[in-house]
């Protein structure tokens, strides 16, 4: 009925905990278009990671309906890619072998994957680091490798769970610019979890603002800042306006 890439209707998720049931996600509905950059923003406990997990097909049980590319979606699929706050690189694999992991798991063509791996390492600025081991790299460089691995099997949707949350401010900004550059080049659909409002405004087309206990979708904010964006957009009065709109929605302005 709708032509959106992803359609979520009345999504809810309740966890059984030692202190009783915990409503992690309460009746969340939305639709996401192909090629959109969406951020999920909110404090811890707002259900943004749970929602991302559901979108990744990693939650076995949840209420509501989720449709991805016209199909009912409740299990992992190869056209999705996940990235985490930690790089989750395997220390026994070289940088190149890490980037080629998705290809190995999904049994993709080896020659093509080798070529793609080189291109991706080039794209994230790690040309010449292919034979290094993860422990030899800095935190920022490891996240770059994780970014290359995310793209290795050419997924349609990128699910990113606070991918730059553990990096220092300067590295994070650089990584944001790189991500935007890669997103503009590849046209992927990105769903990006963060608790950093500025980061969300800088990156996104639309921001899903979420509030905790229970995890709810408080509202969706359109970011109508022009693209391509450079860091000077942060000086824009409209940028601050958007940031404060979201802060108000989250109730963090006192």
């Amino acid at each position, binding site marked *: 009925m709708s032509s959106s890439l992803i359609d979520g209707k009345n999504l809810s998720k309740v966890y059984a905990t030692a202190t009783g049931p915990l409503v992690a996600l309460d009746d969340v509905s939305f639709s996401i278009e192909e090629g959109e950059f969406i951020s999920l923003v909110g404090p811890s406990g707002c259900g943004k990671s749970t929602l991302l*997990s559901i979108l*990744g*097909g*990693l939650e076995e049980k949840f209420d509501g309906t989720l449709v991805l590319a016209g199909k009912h979606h409740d299990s*992992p*699929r*190869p056209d*999705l*890619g*996940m990235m*985490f*706050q*930690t790089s*989750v690189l*395997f*220390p*026994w694999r070289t940088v190149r072998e890490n980037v080629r*992991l*998705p290809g*190995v*798991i*999904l049994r993709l063509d080896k020659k093509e994957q080798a070529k793609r791996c080189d291109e991706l390492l080039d794209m994230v*600025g790690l040309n010449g680091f292919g034979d290094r*081991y993860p*422990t*030899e790299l*800095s935190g*920022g*460089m490891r996240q770059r490798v994780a970014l290359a691995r995310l793209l290795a*099997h050419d997924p349609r949707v990128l*699910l990113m769970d606070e991918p730059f949350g553990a990096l220092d401010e300067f590295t994070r900004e*650089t990584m944001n*610019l*790189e991500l935007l*550059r890669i997103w503009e080049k590849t046209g992927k659909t990105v769903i990006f979890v963060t608790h950093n409002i500025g980061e969300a405004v800088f990156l996104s087309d639309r921001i899903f603002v979420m509030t905790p206990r229970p995890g709810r979708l408080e509202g969706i904010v359109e970011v109508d800042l022009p693209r391509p964006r450079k860091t000077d957009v942060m000086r824009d009065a409209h940028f601050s306006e958007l940031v404060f709109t979201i802060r108000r929605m989250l109730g963090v302005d006192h």
Partner: protein
Amino acid sequence: MNMMQSSDEMAASSPAHRETIERFVETERRRQKKKVLANRVLAAGFGVFVLLVWGIATEGGFVHKLIIPSPIDTFWATGRVMSADYFWPNVWVTLQEILWGFAIGLASGTVLGVAVAMFDSVRATIYPYLVALQAPPKIVLAPIFVTWFGFDQPSKIAIAVVMSFFPMFLNTLTGLSSVDPNAVKLMRSLTAGRWKTFRHLLLPNALPIMMAGVKLCWTLAVLGVIVGEFVGASAGIGYLIYAMNFQLDIAGVFALIIILSVFTLVIYQLIEWLESRVVFWKQL
């Protein structure tokens, strides 16, 4: 085009600057070398000191030589024991027991560890019993095993297996269980099944802890065999130690202990070398 170059790629600009850096590196390296040397001298010095105290105490008549043989007596006894007719056949008996006990303990511990970690039904069935059996000292089984399996090699192998099984089992289980949840999520998101997750993530991730288990396994296999031979045997190093002690040939006992220690250490070092190869990324 890349917007950022990592800082370690940036080369020092002027030759003078580079020279300063090189000089600094050179001094640091020399200081490091000196420290390593000093530590070695300290360790060697302590060893010599202990030998000296031992020598003076025994040769000087402060302790009766029958109770504690002097370093020189021990040295001669080592030669005497090693050239005796009975020595090598007994070594062979003990060596076989240790190797069989080690191998069976290692293999069964690994297999059961993997089974319990990977299959919930196996875990539910046997894990409670294994945990209960893990706590009490296994060495108490030695006399029973001798009764059950006789004075010959099988009883010693059985004790070694029971002793070396648990560290291998527990370390395999712990290694396979202590995995970054996000790494598991990553594998799941890539549609990896149980086998692929095991092969590409769980097993390599477990190897460092498993190798620590192998080392424990080795020392406990040796311990099990020797104790088994103390309890009841007609051949083996443990039997020799027991017999010589009974004959008050303490120098011979010392010699056997030293030979056994050297042997155990050599194999231990071999396992450590193997470990550095298997889990090479821990040294990076």
